[in-house]
């Protein structure tokens, strides 16, 4: 039974969700590990752990936009979060 299309977005909205998940999701996951690496004493452990957690977190961030109603909203949330993490990184380093 194919999924009911009334629940699915289409066109630019879908494109926004995919790009938000793929590009925004990666940047968010990478920035998260970056800030964590700056905060934690044992930097090497963060890097070693990111070998698997980076991709898992990226996958979580890839899925989240699809659960939202609008792709544009997903991009806004992601951009705000990325800017927030960049600011934190800038302040603590």
């Amino acid at each position: 039974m194919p999924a009911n299309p009334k629940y699915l977005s289409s066109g630019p909205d879908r494109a926004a969700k995919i790009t938000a998940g793929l590009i925004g999701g990666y940047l968010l996951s990478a920035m998260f590990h970056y800030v964590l690496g700056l905060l934690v004493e044992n930097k090497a452990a963060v890097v070693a752990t990111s070998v698997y957690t980076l991709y898992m977190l990226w996958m979580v961030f890839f899925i989240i936009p699809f659960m939202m109603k609008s792709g544009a909203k997903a991009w806004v949330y992601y951009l705000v979060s990325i800017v927030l993490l960049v600011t934190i990184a800038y302040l603590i380093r």
Partner: protein
Amino acid sequence: MSSESKRNYHVFFHLHTVSGIVISTALFVIFFCGAFALIKDEITAWEKGDKVNVEEAIDIDYDRAIEVIKSEDYELYGRDLRILVPDAKQEIYFQLSESQDTIKAPTKEDKLYYFFIDAHDYTWSEYYSFYSIGELVYRLHFFSQIPYVGIYIAGFVAFFFLLAIVSGVIIHWKKIVSNFYVFRPKAKAKTIWTDAHTALGVIGLPFQFVFAVTSCFLCMSIFVLAPASLIYNGDQDKLLEEVRPMMRTYELGQPTENIGSLNGFMEDVQSRWEGFTPVQVYIRNYGTDNMMFQVDGMLMNQKKFVAHGRAIYDVASRELIAEKLPDEPNYLEGVEATVRALHFGDWGGYPLKMVYFILALITCFVIISGVLIWLTAREKKNISASQRLFNRKVGHSFIAICMSLYPVTAFAMIVARVLPRSMDDSRQSLLYLAFFIVGTIVTLFFRFKRSNYFTTKYTLLSGAVLGLLIPIVNGLISGNWVWTMIAQNQVEIALVDLIWIGMSAIVLFTLTKIKKPEPLSPSHKELLAQQKEEFTAESTSQTETEKPMKYKIAILWLASAIGYILHGMYGLYGVYYHENMMMDDATGHVPLSHHLWRVGLEGLAFLFSVLCLEVKVRWFYWTAFTWAILQGMFNVYHFFTALMYEASNVSEIVALAVMVLISIFLIKAFREWNKELIVWIEK
């Protein structure tokens, strides 16, 4: 179910379907070839036919190997030597780093080398002097045959495989236990596929999850490296030293003529740690007074999953200067060791590899059953004829590619075994011919038979027969019959034959069970007729007078031809900025390949542009359409490689992006033209 969770269910269902279908073919190839990649070194040993004696091979005479390397005219001073201890291939892999002495070493030596030294008679050979079918299949399992981008394609397939796994678990979560026990073999086709897909999917879940995550890292480690080097403020050396201590390099000492023996250290390590199996050896700072001998390896006991140890000796004083005990837990080194052990399945001997092999083939079955669910769910009356034709086309192509892989691999194995050693020089080309060209022909044949039952039956039958021929051919050629190999305890060689015999036995048993299904209704012909009606209705209902698509296509072909010519002019661009104009190996003659590229890209684009105005036959449409797709894929490939390797060449990248856009429009226009042609023919 609340409306929100109902919506999420459908969203995840769609994510699972789309991600699964998009990667299905690539993922099948990866898992099928990956299964054989587990035993690639055994396949090499089997192909060469020499008796395997790994114990003797591991006992390396390092001084003798160094003598051989020196006699091959390699200057070793200032280099780090990386040595991989021989496996079933019985060759010692050597990699020479660039010389670290930037002042003393002439530029000629500032180069990386890698080659093999035979583990028994210590002869030098080039890395690819013997191209094994095992190597071909192993390389195909991460698409290494596609230069530069192949491994990233494999990486993104792994990423979307992870998506398919996660979304699959979410949609099955509520019934994951009860559905596992549901099996209705007497029900209709779609039910059987659904039951098999969920049950086998759940059995293979941990295995598949491990492969999705580890493959992401192994193919796309660059994504981890980027934040990691940011954390270390761009200090790559410090990053490597802390996170991957085995890679640590040392400042070069003073040159010395007096180089001590490299033998004896390995025996010392093995007497320290019982059951220690060396994996790789580094000889650091060769020819200096702080030359080091570093051993990395695993303790193969049942106590710990990854018990990796390291010992570093100072060659001059013969003293142990640093060690990492195998029993000592170390998270940092443990992570990567675990990732690799889990992916390569080398932590439990051959029984474990066989479990991996079977799970990989089970995953192949999960992929096929997934696609078959997708197909049968779309054989419905309310779906338009053109859409149904398209879905069937996807199904026929998928089944043809995936199922052909089995007999084609068996065939290529036979070719690999039959080729004599005197033809080692052309071995790679001949194996490519036997695997890729024969594979393409076989795939096209089954694709256009348009019957998944026919394809499945005859690929399985031919694969099983060819698979049984493999041990026979091997025995006839080398006398390495399975029973003699087992009697002589040559497990490595016997294993390859046994796997093929085992697969054939299971497949032949399966063949006795498969039944011919009812032919699809409506048939292909009926659907074609319905499609024509559909398109005719569509074109008569259009009120505006569209120009025939052929003009649009002609202009697009012309645009791509102009694009290629503009691109050709980039070669001359550097002249303005005093770039060296001559290619390194230019002889004054234009090589034939250059003409072929020109004819292929510019010539064909011009030709198709003119022809599509006049020619209105189906074979021309399909030829031009196929070329448009190939050209489109080439343009996308070119765009990404340019982005990766010459990102500063902004104007070229913009031009290449425009070419990609033209290709997309062209392919879209072709689909529209197809409708016109279908309506027009026999009007």
